[in-house]
Every structure is written in structure tokens, then in C-alpha cells.
């Protein structure tokens, strides 16, 4: 391609494991890249916050979305926003809050793009009432090997929902129209409850989550015995004081080279004890800012470096309601193995949306950041089996190690998704390392 700018780069996910090299080009080259039919395929990448290899394409082409970050239109009456897919939730919040709008769904970091949010059909603390991100997307433009398509849930429901949570493997989303909810303040009124054990937090969430728009629990996965699953539950709603001032800063940065092994069972135990003790047993109506409530980790730049050169992974699972004993057994096994996590969260999901590969479904989701240690492989393999036996699944956006044989059981609608996907990419030009590893598309069966 004349004048094409590409850049050979080593890429990893947020967990900094399994690096692979790709030719990186701007997302605006999407149509030209498809026309050239590159050898090892094409994949779009946003801010690289998926933990594993979802946004990598070894030896192939990566379309970098991050400079494609415009807020194209904002309708102040309806809250309908049209954006380029590389815009971050961070930038969106900065633009929207002064107008009295917020994003419909935000994950625990604001440094994700809208394209990535669609590809992973991300969820947030409001999933139990608001569903996942794609439930708020009204339309999107998708560049595929068979052409550029405008896709919405009414006229093209199959392709729309295959793209929702489709891990970027149905095409390159270049823009999207998303419905933003109104807010009456940039602050939230937050209630905090500290529970002595897992039963306590499950009961509080089951009984009271519906009274709040946002709810999540931090869980101490190293606590054992009668303290097993002790948690700090924070729930809240936007206040209504009309103060729309928003400020968010990265306060400190982590040095590029940080020793491996500092995040270990001992330091985690100390950290978790401190977090648990610092939390009030019961507090109501505390005013918190958006970054405080939604994005506390974003205050530390490059916090993934804290795990050192070896990196880390996130294991995020879903177990359906009624499988609380499985959840307890899993937490028991983790605590017993001394595999702790400073960032472990528990969330009660509401109904899922129609995406065949969308992760959320009614049940409990548990997410843990785990430092890479060699014996982790067999422990997590065993726990995966428990999750599958309970009818649960692993979140693909976080995965970096699950056995591929489990995927069709975890995602029983995989074949339905493949049929829709193959319509727009019969030759398997769209490819990621995640796909090569798990054979999501059915084009990598060897």
C-alpha cells in the first residue's frame, strides 16, 4: 500500500504475559488493510486493557484505534452520542459530565475504548439494573472483509449481537452511537457494609442490591475458616446536588522496572487486612467522586508493573445463582492454596443480553488478579472444572490460560456465533492470539 505507515511492535495485554509482535497501523487504514488480505490476519486494538491476548495478533496486522478518538456528536436533549471507536471512557466522561450525562457502563478502569467495550461487551457495577455495554449501543459501523456495514440491533440483530462480546472477530468497529444516562451530580452517595464472611455479603447483595444503581464487593480471598469470604460491600447512586464538576488525575506512576514477587501471599495478607479493617462496619450516604467510586486503581499509573517482569493474570468467572456452594468451594480452595489477590471483586449480575459470546448472565461473578507462579496452572485448571460443572464460564476478555476444550461448554452458543461470523469473514482474516489459542472462530482447530 503506497504511503502506508506501519510499525513492528511487541504487544501484550494488561497482564504483560505472552508478548507477540505485530505490524501496527492506524485504524483509519482498516479498509485498505482488508483489501490487501494480509497473511496473518487483522485485528483492532484499543488501549490494551484486556488482561490476556485478546488484543494481540502475532505476526499479523494490528489496527490501533487510540488515535481514532473523536466525540462526533452529542445530542444534549436525548443523550445520544456518536463516537469514534477509539475514544476512551476517560475522555467520554470528561466530555459528558459537564452536560449532565454519564457513560451507561464503566468497568473498573476508565482507560478502555468504546471499541473494546463493545468487543468484550463489558459490564460494570450497575449490571444488575443496567445490563452490559452493548445494551446501550444503538448502532455501529463495522468494517469487515465483505465490506463496511452499519449494524443496529433492529435491522441486523444477528451481526450486532455477534459483535457484542465477539472479541473483535466479527469486524473492526469504527464508530458507534450510544445512549448516555442523565446524572444530577458528579458525586455519588455511597453506603458501605463490612461483612464477616461470604454468607453475609451474599445475603446483603441478594436482599438489597436492587435498591442501588451501583453495587460491588471487595473480597478477602486469603481469609479462612469462619472469616472465609469476608468482604467490604460498597453500593451507591449518583447524588442530585447539581454539582457537575469532574476531575480525575493519575496521581503516581509505577517505575518501568519493578521486581517480580513483591505481590506475594504475605504482602497481600497485610494489604487485605488493612483494607478490611479500614472499612466501616456500616456507613451510609458518604459522598464519593466518580474516580473514587468507579476507578480507584486508575490513580496509580501502570499499576500492572507492580507484578514485575513475570506479569499476572486475571481469573474472572461466572457461576449461576443457586451455585453459591461452588462459589464457596472455589474461595476455600484459593484461600487454602494461599493464592491470594489484592484485587478480588464479587458482583451480582442481572440478566444477560442476547450476545452469544457475551459474558454476563444471571449469577455471581468473581474476579481475582493473580501473580504468575508456576503452580497456578494446575490449580486454575481444577477450579475451571468446578466452574464448568456448575454451568458457569470464564470471561474471555480476562483470559490468558483456559483450556480450549472447555470453551464450547462455557459458551454453548459458540456455533451460532461462528455461523454469523463466517458470513462476514468466511476466510478467517479476522484473527487474534486469543482466537488462535482457544479457536473461537473454528478456523484454528489444529
Amino acid at each position, binding site marked *: 500500500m503506497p504511503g502506508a505507515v506501519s510499525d*513492528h511492535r*511487541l504487544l501484550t495485554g494488561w*497482564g504483560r*504475559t*505472552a*508478548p*507477540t*509482535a*505485530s505490524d501496527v497501523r492506524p485504524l483509519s487504514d482498516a479498509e485498505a488493510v482488508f483489501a490487501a488480505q494480509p497473511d*496473518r490476519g487483522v485485528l483492532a486494538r484499543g488501549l490494551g486493557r484486556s488482561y*490476556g*491476548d485478546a488484543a494481540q*495478533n*502475532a*505476526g*499479523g496486522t494490528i489496527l490501533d484505534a487510540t488515535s481514532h478518538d473523536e466525540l462526533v456528536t452529542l445530542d444534549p436533549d436525548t443523550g445520544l452520542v456518536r463516537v469514534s471507536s477509539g475514544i476512551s471512557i476517560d475522555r467520554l466522561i470528561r466530555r459528558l459530565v459537564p452536560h449532565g450525562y454519564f457513560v451507561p457502563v464503566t468497568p473498573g478502569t476508565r482507560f478502555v475504548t468504546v471499541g473494546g467495550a463493545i468487543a468484550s461487551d463489558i459490564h460494570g457495577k450497575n449490571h444488575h439494573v443496567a445490563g452490559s455495554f452493548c445494551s446501550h449501543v444503538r448502532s455501529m459501523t463495522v468494517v469487515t472483509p465483505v465490506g463496511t456495514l452499519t449494524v443496529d440491533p433492529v435491522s441486523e440483530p444477528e451481526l450486532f449481537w455477534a459483535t457484542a462480546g465477539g472479541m473483535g472477530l466479527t469486524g473492526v468497529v469504527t464508530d458507534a452511537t450510544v445512549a448516555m444516562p442523565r446524572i444530577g451530580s458528579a458525586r455519588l452517595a455511597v453506603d458501605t457494609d463490612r461483612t464477616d464472611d461470604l454468607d453475609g455479603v451474599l445475603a446483603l447483595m441478594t436482599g438489597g442490591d436492587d435498591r442501588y444503581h451501583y453495587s460491588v464487593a471487595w473480597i478477602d480471598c486469603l481469609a479462612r475458616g469462619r472469616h472465609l469470604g469476608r468482604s467490604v460491600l460498597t453500593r451507591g447512586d449518583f447524588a442530585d446536588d447539581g454539582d457537575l464538576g469532574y476531575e480525575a488525575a493519575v496521581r503516581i506512576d509505577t517505575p518501568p522496572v519493578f521486581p*517480580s514477587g513483591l505481590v506475594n501471599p504475605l504482602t497481600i495478607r497485610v494489604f487485605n487486612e488493612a483494607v478490611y479493617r479500614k472499612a466501616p462496619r456500616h456507613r451510609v450516604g458518604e459522598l464519593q467522586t466518580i474516580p473514587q467510586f468507579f476507578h480507584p486503581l486508575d490513580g496509580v499509573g501502570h499499576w500492572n508493573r507492580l507484578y514485575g*517482569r*513475570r*506479569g499476572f*493474570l486475571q481469573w474472572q468467572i461466572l457461576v449461576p445463582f443457586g451455585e453459591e456452594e461452588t462459589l464457596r468451594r472455589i474461595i476455600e480452595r484459593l484461600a487454602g492454596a494461599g493464592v491470594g489477590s489484592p484485587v478480588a471483586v464479587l458482583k451480582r449480575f442481572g440478566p444477560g443480553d442476547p450476545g452469544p459470546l457475551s459474558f454476563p448472565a444471571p449469577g455471581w461473578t468473581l474476579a481475582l488478579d493473580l501473580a*504468575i*507462579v*508456576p503452580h*497456578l*496452572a*494446575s490449580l486454575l*485448571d481444577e477450579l475451571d472444572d468446578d466452574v464448568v460443572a456448575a454451568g458457569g464460564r470464564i470471561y474471555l476478555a480476562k483470559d*490468558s*490460560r483456559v*483450556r*480450549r*476444550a472447555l470453551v464450547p461448554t462455557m459458551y454453548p452458543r459458540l456455533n451460532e456465533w461462528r455461523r454469523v461470523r463466517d458470513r462476514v469473514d468466511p476466510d478467517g482474516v479476522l484473527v487474534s*492470539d486469543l482466537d*488462535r*489459542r482457544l479457536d473461537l472462530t473454528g478456523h484454528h482447530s*489444529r
Partner: protein
Amino acid sequence: MNDALGLPQSILVLGGGSEIARATVRALLAKRPARVILGGREHALAEAATEARQLGATEVSTVVFDAIDPASVATAVGEAFAGGDIDLTLVAFGVLGDQADYDCDPAAAAEAATINYTSAVVAGLAVAQQCRRQGHGSIVALSSVAGERVRKANFVYGSTKAGLDGFFQGLGDSLAGSGARVMIVRPGFVRSRMTKGMKDAPFATDPEAVASLVVAGLAKGSPIIWAPPILRVVFTAFRHLPRALWRKVPG
């Protein structure tokens, strides 16, 4: 693809009959099913192929080469990668030989040098080229502590491993940023066919123990592993022994 814990889904073994390589393949297959390609002299591969099949390899195939002929190694590597991406390549062929024989048969020493060094260089470069193209891949090279400081008792073998070790260190550095990586394994005395009839050296180990260190090294992303790990300390001391003393180290 290699996963976050360094476990591969496709494995190429150059020197498929090597006992350390076979133990490594067993250890990897116990954790994840994988496609296995065994390379070497035809008659040396049958048993390893049967074993890999029994242990749940998703597919087993062979590529034939003889390390005495470096060109055949390059051809075999090309054939192996033509069948699809390879996540992990073990460079495991080699001969030990007897120093006394080499002393009176320089041609035999030259053959050992070809097999252990020249063909390893060809294998390393051919695999590296493929890994650069596919943007990923681990290369595990079986070196030896004998190359760390060469002893008079086995200086032909030791010097070939010294050459191999240096080559793969440089190759690993040259692959930085390519998505490929190199791990050098420096075993001490390993009880195997190669050392049959020899008296155990101190810190002797067996192929299974080396294999589990390799699997752990892949998870940690180690550039060099010693088997057993204590040999790192031992050889740090050995490296600094005065030559007059080193000459007197028995064996």
C-alpha cells in the same frame, strides 16, 4: 499459542528421541494437549511418537533429519513450520562421546562438533526465522554445565556445548522485540542413555527433574535455567577456580 503460563499448544522437538526432550513433552502434555512434531533420525522417533500419542497429543508427526548433516536440519525445520505455527521448539539433539576416543580420532571429534554445535546453530537460526515471521515462539536449547567451564575430562563435548550456549545467548538477545524468546537449559549429570555405565557425578539428576524445571522456567520466562538449580552456585565458584586447581578436578 503459548498461554500466560508458558504452556504451548504445538511442540517441535529437534532430537525427538532425547530422554530430556521426551520427559519435557510428557510434562507439557500432562498440563495441556498439544500437537507434537518430532524431528530426528527416523528409527529414533517411533517410540517417542507412540508415547506422545498415548499421552493425549492432538496430533503427532515426524520430520526426518540427521544432525551430522546441517543442511538436513534446516530442511526439517522448514517442513515442520509449513504445517502451521509452532509455539515451542526444543533443540535437544547431541552426542556425548568419549574424550579418550576423540583424542585419537579427530574426525570423530569433528562429527561431534558438527552435531552438537554446527547443526544447533542451523536449527537455532532456522527456527528463529520462523518465529520472527509468526511473531511468537519459544526456543528451548539443551546446553550443559560442561560448557560453562570446559574440563579436560570431556573438553570436546564441553567445548561444543560452550559454543551452543553462547550462540543461543546471542540468539535470545537478537530476538528481543520479535515475540520469540530463548531459554537455555544447563543440566548437570543426567542419568540417561547418554550417560549409561558412567558413575553419577555430584548433583546428578534425571530427565523428569530437568523437565519439570523446564516447565517452571517457561512459566517464569527464565532466560537460563540450571538443573538442578544448585549448579548455578557451584559453577559460579568453579568459574573462578585458578586454572592449576581446575585441572585437578577429578573425572
